[in-house]
């Protein structure tokens, strides 16, 4: 391919007026001008880009699976805002949408943004061809371990089934919010990543894989570009498993993305900083991925208790390290810092219901986060075991999962089979407990206090993956007169776009990707749910009983200015419960972006 066929990471790169920020990133200073957008409307740039791509991909205009290894491409498949799935008004005008950051050359140097122009993680840069070769070989070594009984008994059966039996029917594609939200970009098709993986396994791991490789479909080259693009591609899937749910065979493309992340982490030591260094490692070393040590956590909770008393008039003292309590409540510690009203509301409810409960101040015991679920089985097991052992040590009868989806999935099901023997301690969802409390009669409610439009976001990890569907709905139907469902909902829901750790990942220009592409379908669902009252004067509430989902939804609402334009804010379930309590005189929910 000639050098002149270079596709820009975003079609608008030259059109923007960038300023460099402190992270070495460039940020648009404002929305695009009308003239710029008019030029786009006339199709000049788009046509140019399409022509370029046609030269690259031939008639298809889309990259083939094997093209992932092509060295001559600056970007495998560029993405631009005007190609994304359209949003309903008033978010349908591209010129009014915030733009995307353009990565500076300095920022690009430590990453590999040749997949789609975005980067989710830094990548170690080899200093010589030999080192590059070693890393590629290490990747193959990791693939072999992934398919061994000793190193990957945890997922060998589901993984093998997903490798060997996909018939390529593409039923999964329509189920994927990233693929649809992106305007059907080929690289985001659930099978694209899986096919790269399958071809590599077929050609480089299975005996005789190179024989008739073009005929059998193993027509792929393994090189630095393949490995690094595949690493980035493993972080373009939310692991929501909606695709797996629709697959007639039962193939799980989400699992394949998960297993790829494991190869990179467990063999090469590559993982996004927010998940590993600032995630599981920080949690295991200091006690929490937020960086809070036990002293800070206790102080913060004390402050929250005081704030809650000021706000509601209800005196609470959150108990810590109470031995032999019925319930050991473990929050996602991010709530304590970002949404203190959530643990505050929990304490009010638990106290008013007269429950025998406690929190733990032991390292890890006050943070239910377990990012190991997203990328590394060893880290997953380490954190889950620590949670269980802390519960055992305190003599708690059961562990209660706070409003955190991945905590639910990690501790209640996925890690269940590493919590055998003495580590086996009952675990229960807060949603189930809250339902029991709300309908027990121990607390008096006035549902008219929640008389505003409310919709429910179903966290994938709680609903699709655990089957906890109805408890939260029964509460909302009772306490929120204007509750309405999204379409689709329940186990068929769409991911918020922050799943699998994305909500806490904001390196380089990744926030732009996760907010405008991964969350696009969810944002559309939210707008559709409130379509009967679109005006900003009508305040609306998205109930998202999951910390990561809330973080992602916050970022989306902020990105589009949805509070000002549509009157939409968000929060958890316990906030609605406290807001409806007769004993709480002032509104507990504030119509602000927080």
């Amino acid at each position, binding site marked *: 391919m000639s050098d002149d066929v270079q596709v820009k990471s975003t079609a608008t790169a030259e059109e923007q007026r960038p300023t460099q920020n402190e992270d070495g990133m460039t940020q648009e200073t404002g929305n695009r001008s009308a003239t710029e957008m008019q030029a786009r409307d006339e199709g000049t740039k788009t046509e140019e880009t399409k022509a370029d791509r046609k030269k690259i991909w031939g008639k298809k205009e889309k990259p083939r699976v094997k093209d992932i290894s092509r060295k001559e491409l600056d970007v495998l498949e560029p993405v631009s805002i005007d190609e994304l799935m359209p949003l309903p008004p008033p978010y349908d005008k591209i010129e009014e949408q915030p733009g995307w950051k353009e990565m500076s050359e300095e920022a690009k140097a430590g990453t590999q943004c040749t997949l789609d122009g975005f980067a989710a993680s830094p990548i170690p840069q080899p200093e010589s061809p030999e080192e590059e070769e070693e890393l590629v070989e290490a990747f193959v070594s990791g693939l072999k371990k992934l398919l061994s009984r000793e190193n990957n008994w945890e997922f060998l059966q589901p993984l093998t089934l997903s490798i060997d*039996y996909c018939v390529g029917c593409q039923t999964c594609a329509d189920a994927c919010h990233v693929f649809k939200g992106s305007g059907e970009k080929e690289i985001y098709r659930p099978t694209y990543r899986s096919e790269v993986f399958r071809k590599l396994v077929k050609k480089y791991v299975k005996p005789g894989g190179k024989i008739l490789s073009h005929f059998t479909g193993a027509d792929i080259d393994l090189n630095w570009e393949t490995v690094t693009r595949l690493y980035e591609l493993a972080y373009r899937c939310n692991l929501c498993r909606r695709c797996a749910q629709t697959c*007639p065979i039962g193939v799980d493309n989400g699992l394949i993305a998960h297993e790829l992340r494991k190869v990179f982490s467990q063999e090469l030591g590559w993982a996004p900083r927010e998940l590993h260094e600032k995630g599981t490692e920080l949690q295991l070393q200091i006690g929490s991925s937020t960086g809070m040590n036990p002293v800070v956590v206790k102080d913060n909770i004390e402050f929250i208790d005081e704030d809650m008393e000021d706000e509601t008039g209800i005196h609470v003292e959150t108990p810590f390290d109470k031995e032999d309590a019925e319930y050991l409540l473990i929050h996602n510690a991010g709530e304590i810092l970002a949404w203190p009203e959530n643990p505050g509301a929990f304490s009010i409810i638990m106290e008013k219901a007269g429950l025998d409960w406690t929190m733990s101040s032991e390292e890890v015991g006050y943070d239910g986060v377990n990012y190991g679920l997203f990328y590394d089985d060893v880290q997953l097991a380490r954190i889950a075991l620590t949670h269980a052992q802390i519960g055992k040590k305190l003599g708690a009868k059961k562990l209660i999962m706070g409003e955190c989806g991945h905590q639910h999935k990690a501790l209640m099901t996925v890690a269940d089979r590493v919590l055998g023997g003495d580590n086996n301690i009952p675990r229960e969802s807060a949603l189930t407990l809250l339902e029991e409390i709300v309908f027990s009669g121990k607390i008096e409610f006035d549902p008219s206090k929640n008389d505003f439009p409310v919709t429910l976001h179903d966290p994938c990890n709680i609903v699709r993956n655990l089957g906890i569907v109805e408890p939260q709905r029964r509460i909302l139907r009772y306490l929120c007169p204007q509750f309405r469902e999204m379409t689709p909902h329940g186990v068929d829901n769409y991911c918020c776009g922050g799943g699998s750790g994305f909500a806490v990942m904001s390196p380089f220009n990744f926030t732009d990707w996760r907010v405008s592409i991964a969350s696009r379908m969810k944002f559309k669902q939210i707008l559709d749910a409130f379509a009967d009252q679109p005006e900003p004067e009508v305040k609306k509430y998205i109930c998202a009983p999951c910390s990561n989902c809330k973080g992602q939804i916050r970022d989306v609402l902020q990105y589009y200015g949805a509070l000002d334009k549509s009157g939409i804010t968000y929060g958890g379930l316990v906030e609605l419960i406290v807001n409806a309590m007769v004993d709480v005189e002032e509104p507990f929910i504030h119509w602000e972006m927080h």
Partner: protein
Amino acid sequence: MTTSALILLSYVLLAVFLLAFVLRSVRLARFPVHLRWELSPVPHEKGKGHYGGSYLEELEWWNKPRKKDHVAEITYMAKEILFLKALWEHNRKLWWFSFPFHLGLYLLVGGAILFLLGGLGAVLGIQGPGWGIFSRGIVVLAGGGYALGALGAIGLFLTRLSDKGMRNSTAPVTFLNLLLLFAMFATGLWAVLTVTGFAGQVLAFGGALFSADLGVEIAGILKAHFLFAFLFLAYLPFTQMMHFVAKYFTYHKVRWDDEPVVAGSKLDRKLKVLLGQPVTWAAPHIRADGKRNWVDIATDIGRKKEEVDQ
């Protein structure tokens, strides 16, 4: 090819099929137990399966007896197997070809059972007054199966060729598979339409297979059809077309495997064995040396306690 040569070749191809089919199925069944990875809806959840709920919605679920609705599970699978329910709901465009294709295969399996029973009956000399039902059954099942199968195979072939998404994930070998299947269906259909005494010749060939009677003669088009059919059978276990077996595992052993660990249970004991295996992952934070097992590394959180306390 003479019929006798076809019979001898059929034995070889059938043996390959049986051996490979059993070995591959056993391999699928003998994978180690995995971490839980269930996916709602799980139809055996009594009273909850219809909306995707699970026993985890229950307070203190570990103290309650598990109530499984096996009828709902069987009904779910029956709809999936017989009508391709998931494809109907999520990929209607493909269903219009995939359904006749699969229905054609099911009819042929029915026809094949009659073919084998008829052949066995002929060898054993059991051919009473009701025996004609085998002949008529074979003609109806085979005729219908071939027609539907041929339609489905060619439709799937053209869909894969024309749909950009499918084309990108379709290897050349998959097109060959579909052509092989089409050849099998088309020759069968041709034989049904042109061979006089089709059922009689089929039953005679079935009888010859059981009795190793190399003196039987059948029509040329039937020979071609049986050749394609046995070639397909022998080839089947080596392809992704074995998904009809894999599907049992993807559904029952992955999606719907929601069995919790109970301390001291058989599952717990199996897991202890797996956790005792050595680990060789190379990343530094794993701290594996090829000798330390899963328990060793999972309980080594690497915290420098003294430093943290200071």
